[in-house]
């Protein structure tokens, strides 16, 4: 019951935050230098043509006016049409967001079990293995994503030819129709996520293992998997879960590099293209959606962490 009340409170807070942040995003688009006129009418359009196009796009109205009409549409679920190509923003979000969520979800599915195992192993063992994994993780975390992607491509796509070089999705299909094409993007994103999560977990596992509570459990003869699963993990997972939700939420919109290298049809690149073309309705729609996703993921993370915390107190 307390969790539901907590979730309700946080949900209301998130809604308010979403509205505020949509205003911040709009302000950001308003201060971006330039507008979409050149993207729509070409660089060589005359002043009169520019003015026409500007009026046609509604850019001659004040920013406040434009924001108000955007909000009015958004509450009815209408995010407007993009300036470039005139496509409904909701349609673009609806086709691209699921792909990005899938990519982030799969990355999470790879990262969590591996990070848990590695974190527990290194945190509890210490010594040479720990130092090796910790250094390895640090090195991988320091390599830019596109280098990891290029290495994976060189070895797995070009050298061994086990996975396709480019994630071409069949027309009208989804990435799930070509599971092989998902492997390299997920591996690239997982490499970075895994190293961060492992390092976080390793520290909290070591901390938890040193608590008197665990000491007592150990003295009572609890050993191995049981010790790790029942006594250490619940205590160590809290901070790691929150960190992981942050990275995962961010992954949805910021996998641009991976989307580019593998030509994965995600939403991050759409946002990037829209910003370059100063396509304000598209930027606004996509960015607000991503903020909503981020807030939802954060909320989930908080609920998980709270549930773990409750258990922890109970356990003591």
């Amino acid at each position, binding site marked *: 019951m307390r969790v539901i009340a907590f979730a309700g409170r946080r949900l209301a807070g998130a809604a308010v935050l979403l509205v505020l942040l949509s205003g911040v995003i709009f302000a950001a688009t308003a201060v971006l230098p330039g507008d979409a006129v050149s993207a729509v009418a070409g660089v060589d359009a005359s002043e009169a043509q520019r003015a026409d196009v500007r009026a046609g796009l509604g850019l001659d109205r004040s920013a406040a006016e434009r924001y108000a009409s955007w909000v009015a549409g958004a509450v009815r679920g209408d995010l407007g049409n993009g300036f470039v190509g005139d*496509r409904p923003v909701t349609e673009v979000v609806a086709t691209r967001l699921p792909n990005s969520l899938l990519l982030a979800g799969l990355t999470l599915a790879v990262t969590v079990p591996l990070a848990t195992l590695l974190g527990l192993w290194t945190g509890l063992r210490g010594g040479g293995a720990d130092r090796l994994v910790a250094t390895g993780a640090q090195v991988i975390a320091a390599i*830019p994503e596109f280098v990891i992607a290029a290495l994976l491509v060189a070895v797995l796509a070009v050298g061994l030819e086990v996975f396709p070089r480019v994630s071409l999705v069949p027309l009208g299909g989804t990435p799930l129709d070509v599971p092989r094409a998902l492997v390299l993007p997920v591996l690239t994103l997982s490499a970075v996520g895994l190293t961060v999560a492992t390092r976080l977990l390793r520290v909290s596992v070591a901390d938890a293992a040193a608590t008197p509570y665990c000491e007592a459990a150990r003295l009572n003869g609890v050993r191995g998997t049981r010790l790790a699963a029942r006594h250490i993990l619940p205590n160590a997972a809290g901070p790691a879960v929150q960190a992981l939700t942050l990275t995962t939420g961010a992954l949805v919109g910021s996998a641009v*590099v991976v989307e580019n290298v593998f030509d994965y049809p995600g939403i991050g690149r759409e946002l990037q293209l829209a910003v370059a073309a100063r396509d304000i309705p598209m930027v606004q729609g996509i960015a607000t959606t*991503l903020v909503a996703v981020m807030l939802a993921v954060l909320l989930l993370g908080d609920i998980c962490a709270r549930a773990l915390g409750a258990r922890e107190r109970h356990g003591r």
Partner: protein
Amino acid sequence: MSRQFDRRAFLRRGAAGAAALAVGPGLLAACATDEPRPGRKPGAGSPPRSGGTLRAAFVGGGASETLDFFKGPSALDLVRARAWHGTLGNLDPEGPDGVRYGVLKGIDVSDDLSAYTLHVRPGVRFTDGSELTSADILHSLGALAARSTLPVYRLAAANFDLARAKADGDLKVVLPTLRPIADGRMILCQGNFLVVKDGTKNFREGMPSCGPFRLTGFTAGQGSAFERYDDHYGHVPHLDGLELRSIADSTARAGALTSGETDFAHDLSPVTARTLADDGKVRLVPTKSPYLVGLSFQMNMNTEPFADPRVREAFKLAADREAMVKTVFYGNAEIGNDLPSMGFPDYAEGLPQRAHDPERARKLLKEAGADGMRIQLTTGPETPGMVEMATLFAEDLKKAGVRASVRELPAGQLYADFAAYAALPLAGSYQMPIPALSTYQMNTAGGSPSAFGWKQAETDALVAKARAESDRAEAKKLGTRAQRSRWEEGNQVLPVFKPNLNAQAEGVGGIGDDLFEQFPGFSQASLG
């Protein structure tokens, strides 16, 4: 790199960071565009096939791609439309009027150059069995193209009174000109005037059309699929089907080609193209003149040093054109002569080629009292090679005694902030291939903002006179005189024309035969 760093830095800032996270990646241009990729050894891949389905990869425009080519600005929107719809005609140096007609039989020009009569080719059928008539052409030109804001259609609107076009029976359309012009065929038959059925408002799969292929599937940002239209006018394509895919990244496009996932890759970056040079299974097929993109530097005559013609000449002499072609494009480009539209029939090819003469440049600058001047060259990554060109030009300028520096704007900003662009003292830019004189009239004449302070009533008048001259030799003479004044006094350094660096699998052929190479057509293509 910076992306990774930013993500982590933002993470620490909790919820407020959420907005920044959401917007951040878009603001930071992707940094993965041109990473050197380990070369692929020839080996596996699909062998050439006859008939079959050709798969081609283009940059595309992401999820904002549209079937309505009057609204879609990306190259792929037009390529897709070319496969799907009939065309008025394409430029063809070997054709009788310098053009090869499509759904037209020919174009007559009235003696006073006040009207063009388009003769419809009889027997052209749409996929629903109906015959193409003047009403369809009228709808495509007068209703759809006239309302388009895209630059490609503006050239026609600047020369013809599209709204007053009239049908004369089923097989004739009369198109009045806005002023007397003799080169209107070159404008109407540039390849981008495509014809859809009368009354078409919404472009959707399954709508009747008369191009070489029927559209069978379309997903914006991913691709489109076609099958051959067996009743296509003229000749029927060799291919059974066609698939046009969007692959934004140049390296990824090349990768898809070398791994056999596609048969044709459009517009690769010079670096990517070079990595393909050793690959025995693919062939580089750069577009040929006139389908070359001009890379240029605009000197703003409203700013101090460039008001002096000696300074402008010095800047033109300082450019080491051959080095640019060799270094930036690995030899895959042509040297420019400071005039746009190379290769078009109205281009002044008779003018002498500008030399590379840093000594003389230095002397001219000294005479003008501009030696040691400081200048910032502003450009952006709008087309592959532009930033590299600017970097080289700045080095050339330094050798001529100019203290030059380069400022690179983030992707998209150079032209988006047009007021700032038009006020730049020195801007690195590019020109799409379009005819010389009509383009001058539209974009440069009359002190247009994109002319960077060039305002010469005499040249404007010469161009107008050249275009209104029916005698071809005389028109050529007048046009060359007008372009000579731009060449001598003008404010544009145009050192290099670069092709679209396309590549195709060994055995693929016939793409160039479809003309209008910058937006490849596949009606005569085969897989070999």
